[in-house]
């Protein structure tokens, strides 16, 4: 799985490309953790190129939300596809995240 890591000011942006499934979950979790630490939890997950996430993928996202909560931050997702949004809605996980239309607006929310 290709995962881009960007820095927008003091905010880290992680952009996975492709579905988040069992095979990719560990890699994504590691990328999130790597970006979280230097940015002091100021991290945005850019989901605009994620077509879907399976159960393991959703667990990874939930784990991200838990870690952010522990650090006094909220987990921010940007550019959720309709498929991802619907499954997160169906499984009642959307409430654990702040969801933004674009990375820019998610990054601006830290200001």
């Amino acid at each position, binding site marked *: 799985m290709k995962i881009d890591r960007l820095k927008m000011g003091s905010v880290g942006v992680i952009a996975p490309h492709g579905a988040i499934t*069992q095979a990719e979950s560990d890699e994504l979790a590691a990328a999130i953790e790597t970006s979280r630490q230097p940015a002091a939890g100021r991290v945005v997950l850019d989901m605009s190129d994620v077509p879907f996430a*399976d*159960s393991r993928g959703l667990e990874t996202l939930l784990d991200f939300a838990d870690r952010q909560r522990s650090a006094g931050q909220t987990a921010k997702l940007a550019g959720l596809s309709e498929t991802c949004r619907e499954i997160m809605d*169906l499984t009642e996980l959307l409430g654990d995240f702040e969801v933004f239309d674009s990375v820019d607006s998610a990054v601006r929310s830290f200001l």
Partner: protein
Amino acid sequence: MKPFRTDSNDRTDVSPEAGGNRLPRHPRRADDSGTERRFDVNRLSTSFLQWWNRRGGDGSPWPAFDQFLRELLLDVLGAKRARLFHVVEGGQALRLLADEAGTPNTLLAPTSLMNHVMSVGRRYIRGDTSHGPLVDELATESEKGPNPGGQAAPAALADRHTLAQAEGPAVWMFPIRDHEAGGLKNIEGPSHRSIGLVVVGDLDEAMLADHAKLEGFADVITEFWLHVRDYECLQIVRRTDRGSGVLNRLDFIRMAEITVADARREGEPVALLAVTLEGLRRFDDDGWWLLRDRVIEQTGRVLRRKLRTNDLVGRFSDDRFVILMRWLDLSLGKLIAARIVTWVTEGIAEAVRIAGQENRSNPNTENAAPLSKAAGNLKVRCGLACDYRIDTAQVDEYLSPNGPLTDKQKPLLSLRELLRGALSASAEARRKGLDLCLADMRIACGAGISDAVEAMS
């Protein structure tokens, strides 16, 4: 005998003896826009009928209709840069006719010209002095567009955004109003609503000045639009089970075949859930037909409302529904199935409440006590089968676009196998008195598949 001619109309008015029309003809006047308009209607109707007869397939008629209308606008009026929209989200947004599924809806700004035309229902023609100051102001803002700094009034930005920057401002715009063209204008009154919007960006000045012709053309387009809309409604009714509002078995299978094939091509997981309402058949024997109908109706309603846009829901038999869900592995499938059991159970409780009220209001029927007893015997049983065998090592190989799939690459489950697995699992759930059973994937998948192992455990 020589043909009889009127003073000015020389084309069709011949005497009856010559085989002509007996009806008296009105002489055509140069300024008779009505005559011109009727001529256009005939021509346009013929074009529409020819297109309609050529049109093939059971898919959505809208993209083809979009193409047809834009060609018609160009041929008849010389209108260019036409955009046709469906009004969606309760009038809050627009979606291009040409792209039913792909393009995201565009939200309408409340102060935009497009929104004004759509909500008021009045047609806009650039240069028409009768619009009034509000429309003139909105149109002026829209025509200005954003300045080089990117600043502009919200209305201008909204209209330009909707039409795309390169399209320029609209010169002619009219809404498609429900019922208006069907002769119900005077009956329906203010309850009309806009279901579509036609926006033209380029039209000859002479044509823009011919308001009667544009009005006539808009009327005809509205007729065509409503015809296509009614046809689409009939298509939906034909595909739909009357009792529950979900797909009937034949169309569920037809659409599920396509969905499963798509999922395989993309290497994506797909899950099939069979929901059985155990005890429903006894309602017939006991004479609880009303309750039975309400339970079916509520179950269909709950499934349609709660599930995702892309999930396929069908009624497979009297007491059995099937749901095909993409992008769900077994674990996620189990979670969703558990929720569906809860939702359907709540739906049944609601059905019992409604049937109880109807029952009480009818003095000729029995009292409500046995009704709740009958409903108490109704159980929701689910069977789940998943096609999720593509593991990490196979993904790249499987997704390779070159050449046919090898046996190793082919997934083993077909829709038929998924159905068989889910239905037999729901039967097993009934036998064991469980809410949910998983299909024994060993039969379909073979050994070594992690999900199959999980299913067996």
